[in-house]
């Protein structure tokens, strides 16, 4: 099966500091050689902590920021260097759902106008057609017809996120980047939106790149998961394989740190020491070695490549000899 999205060696460096002529300028390596591909119809999640580059990844894939290096192929076409004009028709096929449903909706517009925005921008729809498409979309995401007249501030958080989803899906895209779409929502609303995304994915045949930090949500929604640390993918595998048999110490630590809603399980955690290093000055070799309980001198030598440790399971750790704890199946 040809992948819907194929990323090769993607880099995104942000220059910081330096004087007018670029002297002493340093680079934040938000993405430093990321490669993966997304299969049609799957939900691939990207997890990582702040500074891991997961948000930059989503934005770069959609060409909202210019990649520094590497290649992005979408539906077989190289879009790495397409101009904004040339990208415009592609925008119908790839869309974004934002984390903060309030900030991503224009406060001055009604829901109807917001959801119709893609139709207005892409053009070619009469007023009546737009109205009809919007009504249909609102129904699809579980909103009432009377919501069309409202402004974003009159809606609850969950309703706002539904509006954001309706706007993203009204052009019938094949590919959706969902950037932490539930993390700003109330707990009792998160499950609703997760269900909605899964339902729409089935109904509309979507492929979703799901960016998140909540492992429980990710474990529920994803077919495959990529774990990022300091601008690189350290592990990528099928969901069940990743949870049961993680092959990178960072993945193991993430699972261990995730709080489980069961008070009888106050357990010996694998507590990571210290903070995530600054992406301005990442450690040499394996970036995780400064916090890794299995680190040895050789880990500082060179960046470990992602290699296949089991069929479809890739990890970037040079120590193949360690036993890691996963999440036991009940």
């Amino acid at each position, binding site marked *: 099966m040809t992948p819907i999205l194929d990323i090769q060696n993607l880099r995104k460096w942000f220059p910081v500091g330096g004087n007018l002529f670029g002297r002493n300028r340093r680079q934040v390596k938000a993405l430093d050689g990321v490669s993966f591909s997304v299969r049609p119809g799957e939900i691939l999640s990207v997890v990582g902590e702040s500074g891991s580059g997961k948000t930059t990844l989503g934005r770069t894939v*959609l060409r*909202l920021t210019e990649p520094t290096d590497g290649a992005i192929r979408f539906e077989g076409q190289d879009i790495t260097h397409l101009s904004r004009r040339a*990208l*415009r*028709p592609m*925008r*119908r096929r790839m*869309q*974004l759902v*934002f*984390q*903060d449903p309030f*900030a*991503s*909706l*224009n*406060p*001055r517009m009604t829901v109807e106008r917001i959801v119709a*925005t*893609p139709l207005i*921008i*892409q053009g070619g729809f009469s007023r009546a057609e737009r109205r009809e498409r919007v009504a249909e979309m609102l129904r699809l995401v579980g909103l009432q017809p009377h919501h069309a007249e409202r*402004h974003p*501030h*009159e809606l609850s958080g969950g309703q706002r996120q539904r509006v*954001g989803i309706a*706007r993203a899906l009204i*052009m019938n895209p094949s590919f959706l980047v969902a950037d932490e779409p539930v993390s700003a929502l109330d707990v009792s609303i998160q499950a609703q939106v997760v269900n909605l995304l899964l339902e729409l994915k089935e109904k509309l045949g979507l492929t979703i790149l799901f960016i998140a930090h909540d492992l429980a949500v990710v474990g529920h929604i994803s077919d495959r998961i990529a774990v990022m640390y300091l601008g690189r993918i350290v592990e990528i595998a099928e969901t069940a394989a990743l949870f049961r048999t993680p092959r990178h110490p960072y993945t193991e630590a993430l699972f261990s740190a995730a709080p489980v809603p069961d008070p009888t399980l106050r357990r010996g955690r694998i507590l990571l020491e210290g903070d995530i290093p600054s992406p301005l000055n990442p450690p040499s070799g394996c970036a995780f070695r400064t916090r890794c309980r299995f680190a040895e001198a050789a880990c500082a030598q060179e960046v470990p490549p992602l290699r296949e440790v089991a069929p479809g399971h890739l990890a970037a750790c040079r120590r193949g000899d360690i036993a890691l704890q996963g999440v036991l199946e009940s």
Partner: protein
Amino acid sequence: MSSTTESLPFTPEEAAPPRNTAWRRFRRHRLAMLGAAVIAVLVLGSVLGPFVIPYDETYIDILHRFAPPFAGPHVLGTDELGRDMLARLMMGGRISLAVAFTAMAISMVIGISVGAIAGYYGGVVGAALMRLVDAVLCFPTIFLLLALAALVQPGLGSITLLIAATAWMEVARIVEGQIRALRERDFAVAAEVLGASDRYIVFRELVPNAIAPIVVSATLNVAKAILLESYVSFLGYGIQPPVASWGNMLNNAQIYLTSAPWLAVMPGLFITLAVTSFNFLGDGLRDALDPRMDQP
């Protein structure tokens, strides 16, 4: 502990639809309401007045020269040629207000465009445009205006353009700041993902969100333009007699200041009234359109 207000269970903006609250807040502002009423009277008077009163503003009533106000057929008196003051004030109001509103509109278009381009693109373009704004702002407005006025033929159109040319910079600054902040917001990114052009993003998504400061500065700009027109006309570079404007009426009245003070007092009063009213209106709008001002 600054986060007290942030932790309140609901935010003031969420209280009700913004337009109603804005109107409610505006109504609370007594002086602004008064200003709006005075402006309405001045505008209506200038537009409709000349059709109502029996005198033409150029009609010379040689028998009633220097007639004092509130005595005889001329309600507000007459000038040195026996022309009716009320008629001249109304026609002068037409000119002064028309010049002021037009100048405001032009300065808004220039200011919003420059500010939006500078704010949205930033970088070298933005820096260059904003340094230009700074440079123009460095000249004292009145000297700039006089220097320009000395170079061009005075007339209604040219004076309007000149005033506009000296009034757009503040708007540009305000809009630049607003757009620069708004462009980072997610809804601007959302429009970009949808394939929107820069023009669409700036003028349909961003500028409407900066409407509050724009409206306020537009109001204040009208007041400023009225004053500028008066200065220039008073100094003889502006609207040329026999066409009346509040400024050149004032200029005309200089030599009769002791013998017929109402000739100076009347236009002076109208200028003051108009400028003050627009300033009050601007203050009121500033408070009304700012949701953070919503306190009982």
